[in-house]
């Protein structure tokens, strides 16, 4: 007796997951072809949040692009600003003062913790673990408070500027930040207690979405996604930028390349980020936070008020913008979700000729159909969660 005679229906079913679905972390739609509960084919339909940021950048001055870039991955706006300003500074051939580099590292690593906490809360929530969300957001809120202290906002900073920072850290920031990172490992233990040995969590994540190291390279995965499979690669260590070589940190690695290992990697990364922030705060050098170059950074306000030359420089940067030499650069940073690259072509004018954003979420998401094939529908939710996508980052 063949199976066609016994089963009443043999055709596959098409199912639409999203675009509005809590587990898709934004507006992602996945076309699913299902055989019962088994996924035969999954095809992500993206672009709902495409705002044409690359196109918009071509019609703005270099400074005006800054608020656009932090809307790429809105959970880690700082990171996108970081990549962008580093790329423009590379184009200009300037290096910001040590103090600015350290402050950038502090803010970037705090953002990494905040972004990983957001991932922890939401992807736990996707798989039915309600509680981690509350604990994760408790600490994330503290980081948001630190952000408000530094630049007056929560998600869209523009605190990093081309040639330095918008301002130095406010009084009292260092102490509050130091208290936070020192107390963080203890609070981290709460999340660890909730999930790491949780039987349901392990059952939902172990051996789900397995990637071998070779597949990781083939599919272009980076960041915690690659390290979960044991690919020992971290741009902060291997291609250091912004003085990362001054800090001592470990690059955590997974073994099996499954969702559970990527969870462990991200958990450890939060602790390492807290370590980096602590070192940076303790070693924070004194000095200026902007390069002393009137063609790149705005002169200090007191000089603008009293000195005609500084007033003119200020005026020129605002009116005309900065004009990097013609050329092209690619600058990648280790963002929260992987390699964030900015490829900028300058034609010597005040507007970038082309800005290409290599968004980690976009690349990481492209491997989801491969991982979903042959798995249960419920595994897809775990896989989308583990990729840690931000749809604004995917669509740009």
């Amino acid at each position, binding site marked *: 007796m063949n199976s066609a005679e016994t089963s009443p229906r043999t055709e596959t079913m098409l199912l639409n997951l999203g675009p509005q679905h809590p587990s898709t972390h934004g507006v992602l739609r996945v076309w699913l072809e299902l055989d019962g509960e088994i996924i035969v084919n999954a095809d992500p339909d993206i672009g709902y949040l495409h705002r044409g940021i690359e*196109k918009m950048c071509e019609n703005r001055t270099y400074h005006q692009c800054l608020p656009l870039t932090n809307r790429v991955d809105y959970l880690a706006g700082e990171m996108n600003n970081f990549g962008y300003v580093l790329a423009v500074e590379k184009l200009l051939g300037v290096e910001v003062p040590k103090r600015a580099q350290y402050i950038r590292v502090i803010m970037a690593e705090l953002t990494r913790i905040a972004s990983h906490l957001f991932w922890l809360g939401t992807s736990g929530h996707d798989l039915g673990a309600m509680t981690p969300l509350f604990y994760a957001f408790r600490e994330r809120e503290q980081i948001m408070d630190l952000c408000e202290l530094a630049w007056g906002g929560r998600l869209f900073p523009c605190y990093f500027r081309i040639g330095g920072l918008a301002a130095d850290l406010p009084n009292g920031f260092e102490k509050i930040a130091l208290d936070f990172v020192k107390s963080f490992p203890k609070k981290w233990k709460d999340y660890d207690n909730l999930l790491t040995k949780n039987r349901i969590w392990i059952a939902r994540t172990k051996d789900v979405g397995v990637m071998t190291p070779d597949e990781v390279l083939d*599919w*272009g995965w980076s960041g915690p996604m690659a390290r979960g499979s044991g690919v020992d690669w971290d741009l902060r260590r291997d291609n250091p930028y912004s003085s990362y070589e001054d800090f001592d940190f470990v690059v955590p690695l997974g073994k099996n390349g499954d969702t559970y290992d990527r969870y462990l990697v991200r958990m450890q990364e939060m602790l390492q980020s807290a370590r980096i922030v602590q070192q940076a705060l303790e070693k924070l050098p004194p000095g200026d936070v902007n390069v002393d170059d009137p063609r790149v950074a705005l002169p200090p306000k007191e000089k603008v008020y009293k000195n005609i030359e500084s007033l003119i420089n200020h005026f020129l940067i605002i009116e005309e913008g900065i004009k990097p030499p013609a050329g092209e*650069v690619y600058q*990648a940073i280790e963002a929260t979700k992987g390699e964030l*690259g900015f*490829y900028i*072509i300058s034609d010597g004018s005040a507007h970038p000729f082309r800005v290409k954003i290599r968004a980690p979420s976009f*690349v990481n998401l492209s491997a989801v159909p491969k991982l979903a094939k042959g798995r249960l529908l419920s595994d897809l939710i775990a896989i989308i969660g583990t990729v840690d996508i931000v749809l604004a980052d995917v669509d740009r």
Partner: protein
Amino acid sequence: MSTAIIEKVKAQFPDEVVDTDEFRGDTTIIIRPEKITEICTLLRDDPETGFRYLSSISAVDYQPASPRYAVVYHLYSHGSHQRVALKACCADDEAPSIPSVVSVWNTANWHERECYDLMGIKFVGHPDLRRILTPAECEGYYPLRKDYPVRGY
């Protein structure tokens, strides 16, 4: 190291390398588009270069210059932590096309779809060349081209 990479490509494909460029420590090899798949395979499989990782593929519109379109491949080596960019200019300004490198890296699939979607470059041999970010109905419109207006179309 970067000269070693250039020499390697030149030795294997003497007619393909048009020019090289070094700017702020970034190496770009400008090549002809026809043998891009073979060049990428060489750079990926050669143990000395070991560019097993494709970071991104970008399309550039140089209007009004000719050749108008260029495709840029950013490669990374996990062994030497080096980057190299390959730039290939598409011969036809009206209907730009270039061979696909999906057979070399699976990650190229979405990158090439994005270039096709936003710049209208056809990747010959791509298994599934559909629009990816903009709706399928936008037939004939490629928003990243320089002649596409920023607002009001």
